[in-house]
């Protein structure tokens, strides 16, 4: 297994971690753009989905937006965003936000909409105002589904941030791309391994959080 030994040596070598295109910096870039994109997307998608769900309006749009989102290849979204602005951070951020918004809108809408009608009635009967019903009954009951949407979006953002290397943004994708172009399989594999670990950590970490936030009933 000479190849895997080379990969291990790559991760073991301090020089791979340091400097301008070192692992430390690439991981930091990858995380920074993912977190930024998720922050913007959550600020847009969650209020929109929750309010529409609470009011029961715009079902067609809220439910179908994620189907449309799935049909758009993330690669194409990224490249088209690049055409709209200059190379680097902006198109990447725009594309990632565009991809993260649909699953969160749909899930928060469906989450609030599908809260047991009897429970909402009961909350109203107890004299809660619309706002109190939302905060005290609908939101907690919808939380698991909202979290599932955030998790789907976050995993997709981390994954797509890899492609961002193609439009001149760094991140771990840069390691894969440079490796593919120079035929350096060790670099390709190491970059891919690092991204996979990052995506897994996102998926499992948010999955854990989702279970923690799910009320035990």
């Amino acid at each position, binding site marked *: 297994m000479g*190849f895997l030994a080379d990969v291990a040596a790559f991760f073991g070598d301090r020089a791979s971690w340091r400097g301008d295109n070192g692992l430390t910096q690439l991981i930091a870039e990858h995380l920074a753009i993912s977190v930024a994109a998720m922050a913007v997307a959550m600020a847009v998608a969650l209020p929109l989905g929750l309010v529409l769900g609470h009011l029961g309006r715009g079902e067609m749009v809220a439910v179908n937006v994620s*189907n449309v989102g*799935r*049909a*758009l*290849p*993330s*690669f*194409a979204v990224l*490249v*088209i965003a*690049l*055409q709209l602005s200059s190379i680097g951070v902006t198109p990447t951020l725009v594309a990632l936000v565009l991809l993260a918004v649909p699953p969160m809108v749909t899930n928060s809408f469906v989450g609030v909409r599908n809260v047991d009608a009897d429970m909402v009635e009961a909350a109203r009967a107890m004299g809660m105002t619309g706002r109190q019903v939302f905060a005290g009954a609908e939101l907690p009951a919808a939380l698991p589904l909202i979290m599932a949407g955030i998790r789907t979006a976050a*995993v997709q953002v*981390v*994954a*797509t941030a*890899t*492609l961002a290397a*193609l*439009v001149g943004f760094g991140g771990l*994708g840069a390691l*894969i*791309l440079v*490796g*593919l172009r120079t035929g350096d*399989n060790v670099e*390709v*594999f190491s*970059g*891919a*391994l690092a*991204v*996979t670990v990052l*995506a*897994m950590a*996102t*998926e499992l970490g948010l999955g854990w959080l989702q279970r923690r936030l799910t009320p035990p009933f």
Partner: protein
Amino acid sequence: MDWEWVGAHRSLIVDLAEAHLELTVLAVVLGLVLSFPLALAARRWRRLYSPVLSAAGVLYAIPSLALFALLVPWTGLTRTTALIALVSYTLLILVRNIATGLDGVPSEVSEAATAMGMRAPRRLWTVELPLALPAVVAGIRVATVTTIGLVTVAALIGHGGLGQLILDGLNRDFRTPLVVGSALSVALAATADVVLVGVQRLFTPWARRDG
């Protein structure tokens, strides 16, 4: 948009669209071939259900570019590499939908079939599967649409169908192939979705009235 370029490269565009479709169909069909036994096993032995789905979920979470890249040292820049990755992404969607679909068959119906003397394979094939078809087709639709999008990423290992046009446009900073590649891959996804809905209606005539 440079329409002259489009006219001059028409046969290339058609070839790439065909390759795109071929890779998608191959991936979804292979995905189905693998998912059916997995879903049936998960249904037969309940304890397998959550390990099978978690394993498929883990595969699904691997970024596409990374999965292609992880395979390159072993299978090279070949179509096999693209296919292995694409098939792995279909597994989660298909296994989950097939299992859910079969679970949704009312137990009275299965029992009636058994009472009529059907053995498990025939009951599965003539009673349970047809009833599970809407859920199965829903899974095939999602898997197909997702795969069409993912094929574009395989351009980086040289087997991206219409993604090749996107990559070419990106590398040469030439907008036309980029727009053509993106637009056609979205159009392909939309068409595939509509065709699959048609297929479902064709095979479930009893469900047509309630649309």
